[in-house]
């Protein structure tokens, strides 16, 4: 505040020195609006105003007043900034605001705003579009799950990578070499890891049936415990609980490249017949896949990381792309509930495609002045 005053005085002094005429006082700001910031957690008031007709100003000053409190200047804005977010307020306390236009030594104040109080909102209206989309999507999934429960046959297209699982396990049995299953480097809260663990259950069941060897190296300790229980349960379901080896599922390290090095070493020593790389992967994906390719193993990979998919596609025999990995548990088990949710997901995608097409058309047409309202409709789909 003091620096602003000095600046103003210096400006005026400079004008006096040159003998130039003093600046005309600026016009007071008009249409000062103060309102509770919408869709927030409270303690915030939004201000907006317009510049008045008249001589230009050099800065805005914003003053806040509350009952029993001296008016205080809370901010200064540059000339083009006709809005301010005041986050230094308390909920349910009445405030009024004045804005001043400053030019030289002249400070011209606006009329005070209407009193305003702020409070937290219970619903973020900006996210209404997400709520509607969520309800529609959930409704679709639940509808198709119910449809599947009634025994309706639901078609799912062939996924080559998943069809190859049986062949891959059989190959390992014939060659007398183990299968290495890498459940990714993500944690158990990652969707890809959950999907991978579901596939591990099915693979372990087949391995138990074929009496093959399975090795599951893990990067995450929690995933390790889940994977171990998963494999044990699968062996039990296949009627071979005695065949389960505790140390076939093990934790290596949480360090990314140390894990990759350890798995590479495992592949070089054990020379597996089949490698599964299913889950979340980062930069180590090609290191794992290429080493596996060098040992001559058949490789089935799947990840939802768009950056690593090209590496897996290049180095592996089969790759599950993105949601094919999520569909795997439904595809392999053929359980009606899971197939139903897959169907609902697909119809949700059709709706999204339609919205993308319609939204793009609306935005294109909104370029025509008479149809500019269409931009507002398209705006409804944006996420805040």
């Amino acid at each position: 505040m003091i620096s602003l005053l000095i600046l103003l005085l210096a400006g005026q002094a400079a004008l006096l020195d040159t003998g130039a005429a003093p600046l005309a006082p600026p016009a007071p700001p008009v249409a000062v609006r103060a309102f509770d910031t919408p869709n927030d957690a409270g303690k915030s008031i939004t201000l907006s105003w317009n510049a008045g007709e008249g001589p230009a100003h050099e800065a805005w000053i914003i003053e806040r007043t509350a009952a029993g409190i001296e008016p205080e200047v809370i901010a200064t804005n540059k000339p083009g900034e006709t809005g301010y977010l005041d986050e230094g307020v308390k909920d349910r306390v009445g405030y009024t605001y004045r804005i001043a236009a400053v030019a030289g030594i002249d400070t011209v104040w606006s009329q005070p705003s209407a009193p305003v109080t702020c409070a937290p909102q219970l619903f973020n209206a900006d996210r209404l579009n997400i709520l509607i989309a969520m309800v529609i999507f959930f409704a679709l999934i639940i509808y198709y799950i119910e449809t599947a429960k009634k025994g309706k046959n639901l078609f799912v297209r062939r996924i080559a990578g998943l069809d190859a699982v049986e062949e891959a396990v059989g190959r390992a049995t014939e060659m007398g070499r183990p299968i290495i299953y890498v459940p990714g480097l993500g944690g158990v809260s990652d969707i890809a890891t959950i999907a991978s663990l579901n596939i591990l259950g099915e693979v372990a069941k087949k391995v138990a049936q074929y009496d093959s060897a399975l090795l599951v190296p893990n990067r995450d300790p929690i995933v390790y415990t889940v994977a171990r229980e998963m494999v044990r349960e699968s062996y039990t379901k296949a009627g071979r609980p005695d065949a389960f080896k505790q140390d076939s599922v093990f934790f290596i390290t949480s360090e990314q490249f140390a894990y990759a090095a350890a798995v590479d070493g495992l592949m070089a020593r054990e020379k597996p017949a089949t490698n599964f790389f299913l889950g979340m992967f980062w930069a180590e994906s090609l290191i794992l896949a290429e080493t596996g390719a060098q040992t001559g193993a058949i490789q089935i990979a799947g990840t939802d990381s768009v950056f690593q998919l090209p590496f897996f596609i290049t180095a592996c025999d089969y790759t599950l792309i993105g949601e094919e990995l999520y569909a795997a548990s439904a595809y392999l088990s053929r359980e009606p509930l899971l197939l139903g949710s897959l169907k609902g997901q697909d119809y949700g995608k059709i709706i999204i495609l339609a919205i993308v097409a319609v939204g793009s058309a609306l935005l294109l047409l909104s370029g025509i002045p008479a149809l500019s309202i269409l931009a507002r409709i398209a705006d409804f789909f944006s996420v805040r």
Partner: protein
Amino acid sequence: MKRSIPLAICLIMGIAMMIQFFVPHPASVAFYDLTTKWVRIVAAFALVLGTGSLVMYHVDKLQRRRRGWYYSIVTLTAAAATSVIGLGWGVRPGSPLQDIIFSNLLVPLNSSMFAILAFYMASAAYRAFRARTKEAALLLVAAFVVMLGMVPIGANVPFFWFLVVMAGALIVAGLVTRSKALFIGTGALVVGLLVWLAFSGFKVPRLMLPDTAEWVLSVPNMAAKRAILFGIALGGIATSLKVILGIERGWLGGGKQ
């Protein structure tokens, strides 16, 4: 009970977090902060679990003298040494953990593993980038454009000359291999080049290789990526819903009831 309680917790917390996303009230924000703190605390427990599992696995391997048991000595020694140094001398800058173990061991080892990617990319590309189908051929051309366009060697090369060189290489390859597919592809390319030249007034078009590479990355590549991301997002929502409703129970560790 062993399954019911985790499923119930999953259902309640899943619905609670969904509601939290739409409620900006401070109580909702405080709830979100609390749950993220819980997640971090649980993750810390996982470290203890992981260390215990690691030690037990390698000790067992040592005791039974299973294949590669000597690697277990290295692992256990490294784990013990890092723990003792960290606990004894601290982890602040200037400590042995930072200077010796992090800067002089972990950093070079991590960089070396990452550097292996360069060699593996070369061998993977050599093995896999074969123009077996039309789509593979298109992939090959895009790979050529992007690889040359992203390095200084291709910085001042007009895309037109790139295509001319490619046409020349295809002609030579066609003559050597007498492949019909190559002859047809080359012919189409040459015709396309002549048409382009005609449209640009018989002057070399000014489109440069790096600009073409950038177009490939930011238009068709981005479109494909976004399409995959749409599917992944929806698949993620569906899987999350299945987990919350207890339809998907793999994460419990032990298949479905």
